[in-house]
């Protein structure tokens, strides 16, 4: 059984990240956008893990743990904000949440 080359992981990571960006920009629902952000984070995590394995170093793994911790905290705060927004505006459509402007 041969080892999967690192480029496979990186390509997968790039595809996931790209999908995340596309969803982040084009989706209307805030929850979906939020999920897109999480997707991008995890795409990066995948790249980190792949590099760590390829270079046989733990630095990448340490970073991944940090990212997971931060993402957990961020999702807690983010979800709280989303709930508050929904309570106030009865909608999750990002195009209707447009008061923050000049």
């Amino acid at each position, binding site marked *: 059984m041969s080892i999967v080359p690192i480029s496979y992981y990186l390509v997968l990571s790039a595809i996931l990240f790209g999908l995340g*960006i596309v969803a*982040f*920009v*084009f989706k209307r629902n805030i929850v979906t*956008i939020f999920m897109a952000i999480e997707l991008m984070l995890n795409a990066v995590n995948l790249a980190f893990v792949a590099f760590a394995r390829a270079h046989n170093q733990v630095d990448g793994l340490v970073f991944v743990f940090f990212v997971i911790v931060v993402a957990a905290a961020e999702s807690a705060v983010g979800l709280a904000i989303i709930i508050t927004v929904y309570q106030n505006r009865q909608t999750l459509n*990002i*195009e209707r*949440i*447009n*008061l*923050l*402007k*000049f």
Partner: protein
Amino acid sequence: MFILDHLWIIIALPLIGAAINGLLGKNFSKTIVNSVGIGSIALAFLSFVEVVREFAQLPAEQIPWVKTYFTWITAGQFKVDFSLQVDQLTIIMLGVVTFVSLLVHIYSTGYMAHEEGYYRFFSYLNLFVFFMLTLVLAANVVLMFVGWEGVGLCSYLLVGFWFLKQSAISAGKKAFITTRIGDLGFTIGILLLFWTFKSVDFGTIFKQLVGAQPDAAVPTGILTTICLLLFIGAVGKSAQLPLYVWLPDAMEGPTPVSALIHAATMVTAGVYMVARMNPLFSRAPLAMFVVALVGALTAFFAATIGLVQTDIKKVLAYSTISQLGYMFLGLGVGAYAAGVFHLMTHAFFKGLLFLAAGSVIHAMGGDQEMPHMGGLRNKIPITFWTMFIATFAIAGIPGFAGFFSKDEILEAARTSNIWLWLLGLIGAGLTAFYMFRLIFLTFFGKPRYDEHEVHVHESPHNMTVPLIFLAILSTVGGWVAAPQLVGGTDYFEKFLHPVFAMYAPAAAAGAEGAAEAAEAPGIMLLHALAGWPVLIALAGLLLAWWFYIKSPQTPKKLADSLPAPYTLILRKYYVDELYNFAIIQPLLWISTNVLWHVVDEGVIDGTVNGVARVARESGSELREIQSGNARSYATWVVIGAVGVTVLMLGLWGMVR
């Protein structure tokens, strides 16, 4: 040696007085303002008396007595100390300044009694005395310049004292700006002085002049340039041709100010400065001639304008310009002591004339026009008699102060240049004429004012007592020089002799001795008493009497028969109009059309407004980014991230 070690006290006293009255005076009663204002000057006068007492005990080699208190400026070679000095010339000036200003302060308590801003007036007067004393005590030319500019400032403040009156404001500005033209020359002169001698201390400069043989350490050309530049400063400050135009207008100020600043002290600062710089001037014959020529021309020219003025103060103003011309004439022909002597006697009699004129104006209820007066002799006798004495003094009637000083100047001019003497002599006749014209028009004849409207009254004691003091000095002030008429010593000249002899060029010292031995005493007395100056003064007196007492219609007829010259003189030779046309109008045009509309509005305002407009317009465009649409923000984030990535990859590639 207390006061000589602490000379700063003399100048500090009026400064403290000015500060107290100026900062706190608004809530003071008049009594407190008076005691602060007069008290500080009285103490300064007492200090002067103490200076004289201690100075008399100084050994000759310690004169001039210089006291350095601290270093004021150091920049490379340029070093200016706050240092004061006392020598015989300083003593004379100190005496004149402290004494006349004391009397003027006392007089002002009466004259200004009903004016708004009483405390302000006394504060300014004290400030003036502070700067004037700084000017005369300074031991270097830069400190002297501080005093020089300071008195100019006070002159401006006091001429424009009634600042609600448009004419007073313009007169103040005119006085300030015109003298500033002269001060530019003075400033350049100071710089050239430092450049040449590497010092600004009087003593250090003068020592370099005598050290070298034969007086050629400094080229005459440079000395002449320095002297002429310094003299330009003196011309502005002392109202000589062609910068005299501010002094007549300065009569807009209160009369005590005219007496103190524009007759007795500030305007003589130029004379003092030239006398102080005598070692330089003595080595620059061309500059000396210019000084004498300007002096003689001014003496004559201003006297002719004085002939036809009808405002009592304007006559005195032109008379002051004329008398200052005599002082410069004296200095210019090398008779420094005579020039300073005339400065002193002039301070007495002209100060008195102005104060008395103020008393007349006070009595007339503010009217200054002589054609409205007449017959005041018996109604205000003290004013009349004191002013009469002062007129005798200024006209050069033998026995009075002005006779001795003016005679000395004219005598020195006669031996130097006959044409200058002639100008001075005619000027003396004109002086006698216009002064007696003033007296006759004001005090003699029939009253020409409405006696029901104007209640003529003698001034209060605080105004008449200074008049009497000055009248006494106008009489006896010249007697120190009297013994020379019978072959004795001119004590005034003897007193000042060290100042002018210490650094005198070798040639001049010999010539002086020769001149002294020229005439036998008896002939001198006869010469002086029956000489030309006295004769022409009496002629002026008689002519004035004929014109204004004997046949009062003569002046009118004369004016009618000679309309062109009369108008020319009445309009003051159109000098103001000429300056207006040649200088002020072009300056206004350039200021309006170039400096205002192009430079200010175009360049300066354009820059400032342009910067603001760029910021505003770019801001109004850029704020569209902040649309409120979160998805567009997301797009910007992505674009930014891509941009950063591309940039980093690119840089990384370049480093590789």
